[in-house]
């Protein structure tokens, strides 16, 4: 049985974007804060901290979840994937990111990391979604400047693009 007492700092380790990482944290530390402040991976953003805005969405074992509703200690031994994993090491954007750029799907970019991670999971399960399906997934995110039309267009383009590649 894993136990972390309230005043204790414990060593937490998991795989972040394919690389083993670890650091010390209290039991109450959120995964978002652990990523940003302990590991230094600041790609994941923190907005509302109660699961509504979706900025902090990351993948745990490939599944998109709210980083702010996850304790760092719950990620122990798991595979965490964040927005830093999307571009290739030389900085080249992946297809989804390129579509966001082409379709003006971001302006200030604060909500973007979470939205990209949601669709990274969703498109892996459903590579050719309808516009309604895209909007349903997008309903789990808040964007306060660009609006949603560009994001929907970008995801449609990215999934259409992979459809052409597949055929």
């Amino acid at each position, binding site marked *: 049985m894993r136990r972390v007492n309230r005043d204790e700092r414990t060593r937490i380790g998991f795989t972040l974007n394919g690389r083993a990482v670890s650091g010390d944290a209290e039991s109450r530390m*959120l995964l978002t804060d652990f990523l940003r402040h302990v590991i230094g991976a600041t790609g994941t953003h923190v907005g509302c901290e109660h*699961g509504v805005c979706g900025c902090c969405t990351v993948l745990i074992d490939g*599944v998109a979840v*709210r980083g702010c*509703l996850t304790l760092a200690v719950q990620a122990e031994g798991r595979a965490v994937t964040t927005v830093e994993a999307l571009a290739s090491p030389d900085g080249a954007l992946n297809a989804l990111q390129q579509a966001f750029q082409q379709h003006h799907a971001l302006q200030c970019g604060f909500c973007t990391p979470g939205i990209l991670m949601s669709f990274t999971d969703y498109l892996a399960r459903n590579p050719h979604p309808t516009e309604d399906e895209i909007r349903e997934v997008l309903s*789990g995110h808040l964007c306060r400047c660009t609006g949603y039309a560009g994001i929907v267009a970008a995801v449609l383009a990215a999934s259409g693009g992979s459809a052409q590649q597949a055929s």
Partner: protein
Amino acid sequence: MKPRRFDYVRPESADEAVAVLAEYCDAASVLAGGQSLMAMLNLRLAEPAVLIDIASLKELDYIRIAGNMIEVGAAVTQNRLKGWPELAGKLPLLAAALPFVGHFQTRNKGTVCGSIAHADPSSEIPLVLATLGGEVVLRSHRGTRVLAAADFQRGALTTAREPDELIIAVRFPVQPTARVAFREVARRHGDFAIVAVAACVEDRDTVRIGIGGIADRPAARSARIDSAADATDIFESLACELEGYDDLHASARLRRDLLRRVGPVVVEEALRCAA
């Protein structure tokens, strides 16, 4: 905000979880998907001394057919149940309601039993459990007991769970009919339902109606409906009986008006379904 300090315990079995819960009772909160509890911890609306994390208990991550019931273990996420291949055939009402539960991202982690435990009056899964007459399975160091949905949820965010009891599973009765309908009104898809209505055709003209978001807990009734006028009358009297409540999202009056309008539409939709 950030949670207050707590002792974190991650048991390796349900028995171990029950033993830890027996030790701390009221001082402990059980963490499953955390889609409500973690938000409450962050906002410091909940300040447990001990957090017992059951999310990764494999033995509670099961969906099984037990006689005429579908039993869903406490670690099963809402999206896992939504993707269960037999869901539409065995539990069509739940299949219709699950897409309204939160968002894709929260259903990935939020559990079916967690929704039941949290007992939000506008929540869809407790509404379906009440409408179908399901059961909640509770385990403590004293033993296991099974409560009917109607006896389990006592009010808004209030249930009959004793402080030393762990919700192990919920059971939904297999539905003999595919004639169901579900609708809800919310500010935006995935938000809290202002009013939610479920309907299942039981036999010939009897319809089982479930209503969420208007009273402090789901309301379920069986009614004989022969005509559109019957449906209008039933929802008129239900609106008066359940009254509704005022909150940030809607007034009691708006809730009643929505029920009067949405209710008959949902019943008609269920009756129109091919037998």
